[in-house]
């Protein structure tokens, strides 16, 4: 099928970007979205032009590297899918597809569709860990964890850190991402002891990186490829308020 593309081209974080038009005449329905972009890049390279840069790694929906605004929606029209898991069968012959990078003050554009999401990593390093003693690995069954708890922690841990929640949010808030990381650790006995310290420093870091605040529009969960629950955000607020009030 024939596909018209309007792709955001931007040389670096300083320069002004603009849309460039491309047309692909023979796109197979079974191509993934990224393979379609590969096809375009192959043509561009052959013509001696600079290929369209975009992030990707696993191409199986688990690493969180890919991610762009496709027709104004993070990861494109399909719900709960990453960009790499989107296929051209979701589009029709003759469609025009707008492709833009995720935009937020905390996600500066590196080039074209590639943005720098280190701000999310900084949030993790500020408290998204569990302190353990070094030495022999302890016996795995010495800390019993109920099945339901493990499952709930795993639901939060499913966040792949793609940043679609930030891109979809009218305030560019990273509340869904941050709260998922906090909940994941808080639900397990190993992580519980450091909850207050963790939530205070991660919330602080989230602000310092320049993300906005949460207004509970809940757009993030709808566009999140992992369907991370917005209730995690309320839980983060609860833990934050508790830590502040009890001054721990």
């Amino acid at each position: 099928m024939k596909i018209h593309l309007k792709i955001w081209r931007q040389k670096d974080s300083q320069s002004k970007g603009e849309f460039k038009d491309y047309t692909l005449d023979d796109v197979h329905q079974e191509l993934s979205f990224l393979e379609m972009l590969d096809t375009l890049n192959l043509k561009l390279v052959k013509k001696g032009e600079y290929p369209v840069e975009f992030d990707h790694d696993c191409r199986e929906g688990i690493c969180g590297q890919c991610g762009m605004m496709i027709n104004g929606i993070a990861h494109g029209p399909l719900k709960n899918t990453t960009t790499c898991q989107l296929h051209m069968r979701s589009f029709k012959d003759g469609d025009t597809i707008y492709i833009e990078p995720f935009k937020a003050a905390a996600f500066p554009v590196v080039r074209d569709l590639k943005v720098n999401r280190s701000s999310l990593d900084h949030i993790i390093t500020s408290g998204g860990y569990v302190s353990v003693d070094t030495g022999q690995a302890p016996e795995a069954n010495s800390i019993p964890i109920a099945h339901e708890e493990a499952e709930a922690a795993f639901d939060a841990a499913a966040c792949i850190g793609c940043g679609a929640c930030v891109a979809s949010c009218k305030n560019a808030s990273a509340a869904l991402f941050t709260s998922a990381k906090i909940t994941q650790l808080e639900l397990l006995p190993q992580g519980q002891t450091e909850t207050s310290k963790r939530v205070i420093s991660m919330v602080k870091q989230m602000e310092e990186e320049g993300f906005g605040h949460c207004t509970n529009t809940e757009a993030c969960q709808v566009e999140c490829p992992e369907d991370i629950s917005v209730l995690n955000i309320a839980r983060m607020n609860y833990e934050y308020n508790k830590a502040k009030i009890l001054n721990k």
Partner: protein
Amino acid sequence: MWYVKNALTRKNLMALTGLFLSFFLIIHLFGNLQLLLPEAEAKLQYNWYSDLLADNILIKIIAMVLYLCIILHTLDAIYLTVKSKKAKGSGYVKDRRGRASKWYSRNMMFLGSIVFLFLVIHFKDFWYQFKFGELPLDANGNKDLYTLVIKAFDQLWYVIVYIIAIIALGYHLLHGVFSAHRTLGLYHPLYSKIVKYLGMAYTIIMTIGYIIIPIFIYLNR
């Protein structure tokens, strides 16, 4: 107040002031429903009630808290909205993010601004007149606020302004009451759902209640 830079704390303050205002709306509605009593009774009853509130020390304290809440809520709204603008970056050329959320949840500042403009008119026409204006006295010697209100709602444009403002307030509350609980940290799946539906019920009652008053007066008095 401006030294509290932390958005989550500011948001908590916004939720608490918002909830206090929402609670006030209930009392305010029941007070004003007295306007709908049979005409002869309504006038004396309503003026007596207004006078009662004006003299009570407890009510005076609550009124101070109320003014403070309106001011803090509005300042917080502006502070957070400016912050969010900065966080957003340049925005998208093709933007279809709206599919994922309710329009009123994305436009709380716009709805709030309508409410604020309305409050200015509302305070100027009734609150200021009652407190500082020269109002004639009724048969019991109380200031005749009743007649002032009835005259105001005799004008169609005034009734329409009220209806628009109250619908804006209604949508503000529809998202606000629910959002405030999430902000304050209610994360239990079932209770969170219950609060959401209670918030909706509250909003519907407030909106209909406040809209009925001007319409009733316009048609009947």
